[in-house]
């Protein structure tokens, strides 16, 4: 803990390692030879046209999707098809969805307390304390007793972020977290994500918010047709894209904004 971290920082710890991952839906190949290493504290932005496999990729990391070939390691765990490793990985990996997916029959607070109590076995008091602290961090503590349907989309998504954080994850996956939001609510969610990045959270974000990518990402990854086409730091990615498909995609997406 007291290492002098000035000159020679400890070698970065690998959080996620995907090697030669392949996935098919029947005849259709959804992921082709995916190789991706994410180190602790890294922020990755995944982008690409719809159907390019970016959501499928991050959904493989917490096994919401299975894959047929290759290997995924999260932390020290090699993800298998067995409940034991899947559980171990899901407890360490938080996920935020496009459509928030808050549980409608539970208050905001209950949404945040459910999994720590039922999955980690945390006591009610401790779960509530954590939930309140994290709801405060996403600036929505005053809505703790409300139900999801009483909140705006942006507020719901911030609750969803807090809910995932309540599990104290080591990695956060964001699957188009702002795509279902009205434009005026995008910023509050992005600001929350930027705050999280500033605190050193390891993050993989599927998003088309290129401003966010510029500001936060260590690396931007462009996918097309189920494969990783290009991978570069944002500066290089935006100003000097190597592949034709990347250039075309950037042309389309940047002209929209």
């Amino acid at each position, binding site marked *: 803990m007291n290492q002098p971290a000035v000159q020679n920082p400890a070698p970065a710890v690998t959080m996620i390692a995907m090697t030669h991952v392949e996935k098919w839906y029947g005849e259709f190949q959804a992921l082709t030879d995916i190789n991706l290493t994410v180190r602790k504290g890294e922020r990755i932005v995944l982008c690409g046209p719809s159907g390019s496999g970016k959501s499928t990729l991050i959904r493989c990391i917490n096994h919401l999707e299975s894959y047929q070939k290759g290997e995924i390691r999260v932390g020290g765990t090699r993800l298998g098809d067995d409940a034991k490793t899947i559980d171990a990985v899901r407890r360490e990996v938080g996920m935020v969805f496009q459509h928030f997916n808050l549980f*409608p029959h539970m208050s905001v607070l209950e949404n945040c307390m459910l999994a720590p109590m039922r999955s980690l076995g945390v006591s009610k008091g401790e779960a509530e304390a954590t939930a309140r602290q994290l709801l405060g961090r996403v600036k929505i503590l005053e809505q703790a007793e409300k139900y999801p349907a009483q909140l705006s989309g942006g507020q719901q998504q911030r609750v969803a972020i807090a809910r995932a954080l309540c599990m104290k994850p080591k990695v956060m996956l964001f699957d188009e977290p702002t795509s279902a939001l009205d434009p005026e609510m995008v910023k509050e969610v992005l600001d929350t994500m930027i705050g999280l990045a500033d605190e050193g959270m390891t993050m993989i974000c599927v998003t088309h918010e290129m401003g966010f990518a510029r500001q936060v990402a260590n690396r931007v990854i462009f996918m097309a047709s189920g494969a990783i086409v290009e991978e570069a730091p944002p500066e290089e990615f935006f100003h000097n894209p190597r592949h034709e498909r990347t250039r075309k995609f950037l042309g389309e997406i940047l002209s929209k904004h």
Partner: protein
Amino acid sequence: MNYQLDFTPVIDGLPALLMGCLGTFLLALAGMALAIVIGVGGVVLRDSKIAPVRWLVKAFVEIIRNTPFLVQIFFIYFALPLAGLRLDPTPTAIIALGINGGAYAIEIIRGGVQSIGKGQIEAGLALGLHKAQVFRLIVLKPALRAIFPSLTSQFVLLTLTTSIASAISAYELTSVAQRIESDSFRSFEVYGTITLFYLVISWVMMRFFSAISTRYFSYPVK
């Protein structure tokens, strides 16, 4: 119409009739409790990984929903003793009502479960909950809320179906009425009276279910 109304037997029999109402209520409530257990359990088993279990649930639903309740109750009461299972009329009626209501409840609740978005389930799984926990903690309540009106009318129907249990002399309102009627021949008065009683019983049941709905399912939705 020279018929002279005479409610004396009904008035004399009122305590017995009111006890019969109580019997009907208890029969209905016990039957519903069993039907809920069968309904929720059946929904879980219907999606079992084990194919024969799925077939069994489907076959159960089809058999029960496509045969008369009277035959089902006769089968349990008269046929099962030949296989060594002898039950009193009232337990027989409860089991028959539970099985019958359960078969309908399986189909109704399944509709509710299917109405729950995949995203809800994925959110639960991503939070590290097991499949069974996801069903119990995340899916079940919104699913029941979605189909609660249908379940209510099915259970009011179940309440009225208790009268068929009079065929095996289970303790409930219609069998009490039959006894009074056969002693007094005052059919019009007796059956007229219990018709009103059944209306009240149905009304009470509906109030009961709407109270449950208010208590458990009144969270806001968009």
